[in-house]
């Protein structure tokens, strides 16, 4: 169109752009949680880890001028939180869900406290790769400005899928998750496996946080996550502990988050609250469709405290 508007095409484009822009934190947190839960533990604290990751990435990027150092710092902070969770859970008679909730509150509280002076300054952001160079439609080019973290996340999903199936490490994690006794009988320390799996999960969740503060929406503030970490943890159950399904579910959530604003921008104004709730309605629907009173969730690691 002459005035540079693309009319109704905005909606599919926004959903595409949203799937790419909004999905990355979901993807990293859900893949991380996938590793942790496959080892037989639930870490609900990833919301706190995500927010801590976002804060530390922003802080380090601001102080050092290098966003990549920020990403690394976020990952390490996440791993530290993972170690804390695993450490506390390895004590006898400690419930991993309760520890997770405590760490979620601790992580967000600590991030808000330490992040106070970071709200105002502007930190160096992660660069985007322009995949839309071939197009002369500015809207499409904007949607295709992709951050490399998204690509890493997309590559990580099949890699994890493959690793769970065929590598020794994947097998060990799965053994610890399916039957702790079997892992012990094989001569492995279940606690050590779970420590490593939770740390790896925390590392990924921290990186997911760095995407929020360093790329999109791209600044540190206290409303930044607004529950995305918790949503991503739920997403793992929804994805049946399968990394590839985590990828598709994250993309669907990202696209659904963009649907509400996009529909309003083209003039579909009725019921925008409903469209804004689209990701949650989607979750509920799939949960209802796939649940059955006759069997436990397929794919659920047997050692998880919710299935045991």
């Amino acid at each position: 169109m002459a005035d540079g508007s693309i009319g109704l095409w905005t909606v599919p484009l926004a959903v595409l752009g949203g799937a790419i822009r909004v999905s990355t934190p979901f993807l990293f947190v859900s893949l991380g949680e996938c590793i942790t839960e496959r080892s037989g533990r639930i870490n609900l604290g990833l919301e706190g880890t995500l927010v801590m990751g976002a804060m530390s990435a922003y802080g380090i990027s601001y102080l050092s001028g290098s966003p990549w150092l920020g990403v690394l710092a976020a990952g390490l902070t996440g791993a530290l939180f993972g170690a804390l969770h695993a450490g506390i859970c390895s004590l006898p008679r400690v419930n991993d869900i309760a520890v997770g909730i405590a760490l979620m509150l601790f992580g967000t509280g600590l991030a808000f406290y330490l992040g106070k002076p970071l709200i105002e300054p502007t930190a160096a952001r992660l660069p985007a790769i322009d995949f839309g160079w071939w197009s002369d439609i500015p809207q499409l080019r904007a949607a295709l400005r992709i951050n490399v973290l998204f690509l890493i996340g997309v590559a990580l999903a099949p890699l994890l899928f493959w690793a769970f199936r065929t590598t020794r490490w994947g097998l060990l994690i799965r053994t610890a998750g399916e039957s702790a006794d079997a892992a012990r009988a094989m001569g492995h320390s279940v606690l050590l496996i779970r420590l490593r799996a939770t740390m790896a999960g925390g590392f990924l969740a921290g990186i997911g946080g760095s995407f929020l503060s360093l790329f999109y929406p791209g600044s540190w503030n206290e409303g930044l996550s607004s529950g995305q970490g918790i949503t991503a943890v739920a997403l793992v159950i929804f994805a049946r502990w399968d990394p590839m399904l985590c990828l598709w579910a994250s993309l669907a959530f990202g696209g659904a988050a963009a649907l509400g604003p996009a529909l309003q921008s083209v003039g579909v104004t009725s019921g925008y609250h409903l469209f804004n709730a689209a990701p949650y309605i989607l979750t509920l629907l799939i949960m209802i469709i796939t649940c059955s009173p006759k069997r436990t969730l397929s794919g659920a690691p047997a050692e998880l405290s919710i299935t045991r």
Partner: protein
Amino acid sequence: MDFGGISRRHLLQGGAALGLSAAAGLKPAFAAETTIGFIYVGSRDDYGYNQAHAQGAAALKKLPGLKVIEEEKVPETDAVEKTIESMINLDGATLLFPTSFGYYNPHMIKMANKYPKLHFEHCGGLWTDKDPKNAGSYFGYIDEAQYISGIVAGYTTKSGKLGFVAAKPIPQVLRNINAFTLGARLANPKATTQVIFTGDWSMPVKEAEATNSLIDQGVDVLTCHVDGPKTMVENAARRGAFVCGYHVNQSPLAPKAYLTGAEWNWEALYPKFVKMLAAGESIPNFYRGGLKEEIVKVSPYGEAVSDEAKKHADEIKAKFMADGYTIFKGPIKDNKGNTVIAAGTDRGQKDPELEKMDYLVEGVLGATS
């Protein structure tokens, strides 16, 4: 009950010791300090609503004889009562500013009844005759500043499409959207404002998505009414669009893209309140005003603002300052074609009808439900 008398007696009893007169700079020799408590619902450096109040608090800190205490992130629940109690009992605060809208009823009312000798000032304009006399609720007609922003936006837009990222369709927000649009159409009668409601006051991801969707639609000047405009300002500037700010001056975030903005001017109002008390006067329970009363202000123009736009905007601003301008002047139609303000009807700023606004004017693309 004679509020003035109580206020004076309070001042005579405690005022000397508290050094309220020192606050006005009259007798700086007083050793004791007056303690003023500020309570914010969010972070005080959010580039938004809370920062605007914190700037007002900072202006008070500069005055001699005043001690300002602040607490951030106090939810609009019983928590605010606890904060007020501790500010009174532990810090000795005698004047309190619970700044968030939802603090007023029942929390602040309850505290004002419990401590009848202390003063409570709330931002939101909610005071009615039934409420305690030591409580007050002030508010600013920030739509005047939005109207000026609209004029500047109307001159700057090339596509004639403006965007508004809004939280919820409540009267205060609708009034800003409508004033912005009416201002823009003064400059460019064909201009339209596309509005997107995010559903809540602080939704950074939704705000960023809304900003991107608007720009995808060809919008080239954006403004907003959410608690923290930082997300909209930064994301719009990254996409090469212009922005008008809200709450405080966001130009440090996007110096090239920032045109102007509608700001609160609490740093002018709060010292006035303190001086009123120090002089033994009572603060009017229901205190309101716009540009003329220095409760709101317009950000300095950015470099992208044309001389023509500046001239027109300054002209209207001067009329506001002289109190000779009405934004909502009939005939005004809503965007469904119904006449909402009949020809010949002037709805001045203080008109209570405007407080019930539930429509979007002609030129706004969007709906309130």
